[in-house]
């Protein structure tokens, strides 16, 4: 690459192009920003998505409703369960399938565990970008314990393929809840260490406090959702506002940080992690016995009645939505996936990154916890 000045005669600076990604440790996943740089400062950011584009929406139209269950976890790799749940909930709504209470509790457990795993993954990314490798190693190491739980429950470490229209595929294995409870105890011990090691760390605070400030109005205008939106002071959580599953039976709060900067974004996640643990503990106590799946027709005869529905789940990154259209056949007519990172990664980043120094770009990317596969699809 050459340090070529771009032809902008009215400017004395030498601009040059810098690729953040795809082959760059500072980017999440396989995604790229092409930055036009002015010294150490970003003058223009252009996202270059599609490096992970697999054409999910097309492939889903070619597969049976339930076959797609193997496909959709891959839309958001670090947190696959939200896809499964959102998709199944959409089907259940359209086909009017009742989901047993126990299955709903299990789904909440899975979702909240996935949220914790996703937090650990996301903040470890921050550790990686700021050079705080020890925290990255710790968090990913601890995330593995969640993967163990998932593996025992579902038979797969990352792609669980555990949800099924009408409930979940199999019951909790014997002793699983004890194991979960042990894990929560362990997390309870580790969390203060994380706080001291990461959140109270003066340099982490120096790097993130005040970085990438966004006001509440701007956040809404730019389509931010989830923790990123809440960190700006809009206390809106689908789990509270439009309770799905059994979230209305559980006692939890939406923490408020509201500074709108990078630090409050990770802090928001950290505080929500505490709430997740609270939810999980309640679930362990409250989970009822009983069936865990309503029987639905087998995959070859499973037809969803004509109609369309937008089903959504609060993921750790924001609102994960599935807009599904059925023409009454065994295959979906159209599935549109609304990834939570779409607006922030492809649109808001072009605004937010401008004027930012190069060293802050990866930090900003990681504090927004964006996940390229969910907008590349």
């Amino acid at each position, binding site marked *: 690459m050459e340090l070529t000045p771009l032809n902008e005669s009215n400017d004395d600076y030498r601009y*040059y192009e810098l690729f953040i990604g795809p082959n760059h440790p500072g980017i999440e996943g396989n995604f790229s920003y092409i930055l036009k*740089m002015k010294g*150490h400062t970003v003058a223009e950011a252009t996202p270059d998505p599609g490096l992970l584009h697999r054409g999910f929406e097309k492939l889903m139209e070619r597969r049976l409703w339930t076959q797609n269950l193997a496909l959709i976890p891959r839309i958001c790799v670090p947190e696959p369960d939200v896809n499964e749940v959102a998709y199944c909930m959409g089907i259940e709504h359209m086909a009017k399938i009742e989901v047993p209470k126990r299955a709903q509790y299990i789904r909440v457990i899975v979702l909240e565990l996935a949220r914790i795993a996703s937090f650990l993954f996301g903040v470890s990314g921050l550790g990686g970008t*700021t*050079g705080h490798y020890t925290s990255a190693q710790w968090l990913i190491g601890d995330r593995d314990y969640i993967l163990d739980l998932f593996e025992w429950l579902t038979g797969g470490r990352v792609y669980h393929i555990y949800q099924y229209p009408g409930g979940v595929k199999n019951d909790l294995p014997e002793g699983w809840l004890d194991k979960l409870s042990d894990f929560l105890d362990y997390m309870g011990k580790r969390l203060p260490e994380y706080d001291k090691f990461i959140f109270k760390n003066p340099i982490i605070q120096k790097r993130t406090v005040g970085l990438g400030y966004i006001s509440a109005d701007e956040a809404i205008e730019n389509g931010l959702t989830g923790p990123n939106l809440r960190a700006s002071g809009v206390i809106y959580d689908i789990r509270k506002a439009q309770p799905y599953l059994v979230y209305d039976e559980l006692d939890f709060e939406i923490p408020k940080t509201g500074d709108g900067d990078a630090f409050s974004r990770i802090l928001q996640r950290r505080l929500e992690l505490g709430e997740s643990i609270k939810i999980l503990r309640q679930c362990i106590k409250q989970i009822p016995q009983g069936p865990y799946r309503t029987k639905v027709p087998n995959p070859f005869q499973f037809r969803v009645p004509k109609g369309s529905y937008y089903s959504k789940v609060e993921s750790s990154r924001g609102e994960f939505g599935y807009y599904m259209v059925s023409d009454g056949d065994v295959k979906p007519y159209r599935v549109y996936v609304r990834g939570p990172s779409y607006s922030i990664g492809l649109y808001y980043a072009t605004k937010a990154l401008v004027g930012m120094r190069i*060293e802050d770009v990866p930090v900003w990317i990681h504090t927004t916890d964006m996940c390229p596969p969910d907008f590349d699809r």
Partner: protein
Amino acid sequence: MVIVEFLIKLSQGFGIGALALATGLLFGGIARKIMARIQRRYGPPFTQNFMDLFKLLSKGSVSHGWAFDLGLVAGFVPMLAALMFLPIGPFTLFPSDSSLIMIVYLMMMAYLGMAMGVLASGNPNSAIGMSRALMLMAGYEVPFAAVIFSIYFFSKTGYLTQIVAMQSGGFMNWNIVKMPLGFLAVEIVLQGMLGEKPFDQAIAPAEIASGPMVELGGKYLGFGMIQHSVALFLETGIIVDLFLGGAPNFWIFIAKQFVLYFVVVLVDAILPRLRVHEATSFFWKLPLFLGILQAVIVIIQGGVLNV
């Protein structure tokens, strides 16, 4: 006889080079082990760095022009040259020429040479990295200079051999006791010199894809690694000579070096990276303050109070 002497010196020089390299690599390996432990894992064998170096030297490499090659040589040779003047325990290759200023000057030369080389690669990442490295250098060289000034003033000499000699006779004579603030400043500076976190802005893999090293591959990276290892040995060695009273024999010298490096590694393990301007301004604040304070104390002690 001159020829024989020259040959002896030459082989001794090679010996020192090899020794410094081996020690540097070993330190690197042990540091990786320590880091790994803090990160709750086992880490690579402590000989890993040797294997890495060997592999790098056996690997194919791409040059980016003569300036690239020359730059690397210019980065590598001064570092080795500086090493020749370092009193290693009781041994000094050129006892009469261990001028501190010269060593520091040669070290800076090495970095500038490196800068020239990597800039020739044309990769913006390495340009950014190099500009960061130089900016950082501007940061830590100032407090370092302040401390050196104190030592000059205190020891009334610029030769390391003499500084070491002055500290003989027990722990209480070491400069670390006499100039604790200066030592503190230098330890922080050492963190910066070695490019360990929080001062690794120059390489910063996640930001600028390892900065200056971005276009170095194979043998070039191998030379970079040698340079880094030698620098590690040299820089810790200087501080051992300056503050820890040198050493009666080689092993103790290495042990002292390691203690210094150990602290660096621990800090490296628990702190993330600062922004580059923050790092520079940090050097101009705390370490510089300590350095100047030390200088003032020394001046007051030596000049005014005449202790």
